[in-house]
């Protein structure tokens, strides 16, 4: 069973959810990250996700495996988009099935927090105003759109 993977195609929530179906599990928690139309005061038109997939898949699998062991849940999966995404599209999906709901919520939260924090994935915002910038990189956005490189 897959624990973490990337896709270039639209994520179908019903399909990925079906991978976690389990007649012994009574609870299923999921999280979806959607592309929203604004961030830090800027209007966003679309996003671009890029990943160092070889390491990211290993790191993502480590996170999901750790969640399963730590919270004792039945199954868990994270699927992340790469490529260009429009506002409203599903960027990341996390699902956890479990005997009990408390553990399902905790594992789901743990996975999305760790994925955002540790997995080598980058997000470039394209703004309605026409410019763009890499997210989480304080001096990156300005630099990314500078016509001339700033001297080191």
């Amino acid at each position: 069973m897959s624990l973490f993977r990337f896709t270039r195609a639209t994520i179908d929530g019903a399909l990925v959810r079906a991978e976690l179906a389990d007649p012994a599990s009574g609870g299923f928690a999921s999280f979806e990250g959607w592309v929203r139309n604004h961030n830090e005061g800027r209007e966003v038109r679309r996003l671009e996700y890029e990943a160092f997939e070889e390491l990211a898949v290993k790191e993502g699998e480590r996170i999901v495996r750790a969640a399963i062991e730590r919270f004792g849940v039945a199954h868990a999966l994270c699927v992340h988009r790469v490529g260009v995404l429009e506002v409203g599209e599903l960027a990341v999906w996390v699902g956890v099935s479990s005997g009990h709901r408390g553990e399902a919520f905790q594992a789901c939260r743990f996975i999305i927090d760790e994925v955002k924090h540790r997995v080598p994935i980058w997000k470039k915002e394209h703004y309605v105003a026409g410019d763009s910038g890499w997210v989480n990189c304080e001096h990156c956005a300005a630099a990314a759109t500078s016509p001339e490189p700033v001297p080191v």
Partner: protein
Amino acid sequence: MNLRVQYFALLREQAGRSEERVTTNAATPAELYTELKTRYPFQLTREQLKVAINAEFRDWTTPLADGDSVVFIPPVAGG
């Protein structure tokens, strides 16, 4: 020593390429990044980056070996 260097996100844009073969005397990722900064307009500091060698996270002081694949990882933003 020959290395493969891959670039992602901001570093890819600033290097103008996704990967390259580099012939170098740099003994560690720290030395390699200093060398690459003379070639490309990289502004990210070592404190902002992480290092991967052969697709595993490593220290800045890990000795490099011929044939290694090196990636400098800018601040991530998945999800």
